[in-house]
């Protein structure tokens, strides 16, 4: 059988989908997280409850939504509520198991910058800002982030802390009175980083063909490598088929890199 080929976006999406458990209530972001959630729903997690920040609960999108407020999320959903309700009754109340995060920068403690590169008052590059990120990071039970593994995305110090990971370490997050377990995995195109007992992200798994040296060279801090470094199972033919044929047939998100 010829070896399967796949893009880095497909690799990220498939590994993100594997983090979800059947029955999870997940706050879905647009783009790759949305594909990951729908892939999980089509494979090992048929009872995944998908919640969108636009106020949609139990969505079953019939097409790939370009935006977070696409009408396909509404048709056939279990419930639709206001934005205040989705953030208050669902997220703040503690009814969300999983949050998928994005961001331009992430530091060693899983804190996120989605706001600005450079000085806040005199931005060099102005990014979109928090959206729901601040609250998802603080209040979802488990947070995950998908990003290409690039040095500029993993700096020693963030330009701006939009959303909390473990702050300055696991104890600090606890002391701040946040609910939820914080940033539990960062999936990149090279592997997976997970927090150690101090909340510091450590390389715990590599994708087939990637090396720890590659990961370290593309991380802005001195990345620790777990002693029991694992290899993630390669994307399966079935996972790739569902992604390509059912979920993103036009390749809007999956073509090329993330």
């Amino acid at each position, binding site marked *: 059988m010829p070896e399967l080929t796949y893009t880095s976006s497909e690799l990220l999406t498939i590994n993100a989908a594997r983090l979800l458990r059947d029955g999870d209530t997940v706050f879905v972001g*647009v*783009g790759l997280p949305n594909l990951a959630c729908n892939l999980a729903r089509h494979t090992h997690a048929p009872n995944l409850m998908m919640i969108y*920040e*636009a*106020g*949609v609960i139990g969505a079953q999108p019939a097409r790939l*939504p*370009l*935006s*977070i*407020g*696409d*009408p396909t*999320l*509404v*048709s056939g959903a279990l419930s*639709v*509520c*206001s*934005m*205040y309700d989705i*953030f*208050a009754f669902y*997220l*703040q109340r503690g009814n969300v198991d999983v949050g998928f995060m994005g961001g331009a920068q992430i530091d060693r403690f899983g804190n996120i910058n989605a*706001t600005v590169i450079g000085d*806040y*008052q*005199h*931005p*060099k*590059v*102005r990014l*979109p*800002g*928090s*959206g*729901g*990120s*601040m*609250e998802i*990071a*603080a*209040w979802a039970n488990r947070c995950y982030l998908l990003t290409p593994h690039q040095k500029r995305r993993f700096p020693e110090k963030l330009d*701006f*802390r*939009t*959303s*909390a990971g473990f*702050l300055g370490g696991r104890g600090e*997050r606890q002391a*701040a*009175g*946040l*609910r939820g377990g914080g940033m539990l995995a960062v999936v990149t195109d090279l592997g997976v980083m997970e927090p150690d007992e101090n909340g510091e992200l450590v390389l715990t798994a590599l994708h087939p063909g990637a090396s720890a040296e590659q990961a370290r060279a593309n991380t802005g801090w001195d990345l620790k490598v777990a002693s029991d470094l694992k290899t993630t199972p390669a994307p399966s033919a079935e996972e790739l088929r569902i992604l390509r044929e059912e979920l993103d047939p036009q390749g809007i998100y999956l073509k090329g890199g993330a």
Partner: protein
Amino acid sequence: MSKLVSLSQAVQQYVHDGDMIYAAGFTHMIPFAAGHEIIRQKRRNLVLARATPDLIYDQMVAAGCASKVIFSYMGNPGVGSLRIVRAELEAGRLEWEEYSHFGMISRLQAGATGLPFMPMNPTAAGDLEHANPNYRTVTDPYTGQPVVVVPALKPDVAIVHVQRADADGNAQIWGIIGEQKEAAFAAKHVILTAEEIVDQAIIRSDPNRTLIPGFIVDAVCHVPYCSHPSYTQGYYDRDNDFYMEWDKISSSPEATQAYLDEWVYGVKDRDEYWQKLGSKTHKRLKVSKNLSSPVDYGKY
């Protein structure tokens, strides 16, 4: 009492230079026609508040209507950068005030319910709270724990698009209901735009769907296709192609000006705009029916 007026009259009467405007709708039912009318009437120094400024505020900023934006996510949803607002912020030419979505929506919730502020649980994301002094931390008088508060947002004018309303302004919305109700109750004046103006008996046949009562509405405008390139659930689809096209248009000041000349200044109103879009676009955005099961309110 009928409040039916043209959108042009409503903007003339209720939108003034320097006002704070909240054009509501989270991705859904964004009242683009009203944004375009404000541009045509050359309002200046507006404070534009919206959780997601979206293309409507990008266009209004490009047209020189705004002196400040208040937002919680400044992007082109599903596409990337909101280029014009972003460039103005980076150049220091536009004031801004920033929240998370929950902070922004909590401000409206306070405004809508007549409270001075809303409390929220802490998120420990201190940088935005330092950057924006409107974020304060107070002590919960019951537990002694810290809570984060934001002040009420009270726009001068809320503009809300709905599927159907009667001539008094009793308005029904379905699909994503974002912050339409909150914006309407928080504002001093409410301009309603509606896909359909219906007999009050239709509104009364399904009272649970009425999110906005007519007595808080100032003007009711019949504006079919008001939200294009955003969408109206059950009426027409989101024009994702245009959202992607805007990414190109907005990267050049000349192309942006040409767009405004042709599609905003160059048309009289939304009817003309919609006709100009042409049958190919109409067909592309058409949606097929998907009716809900009727509910029985009972006769008493």
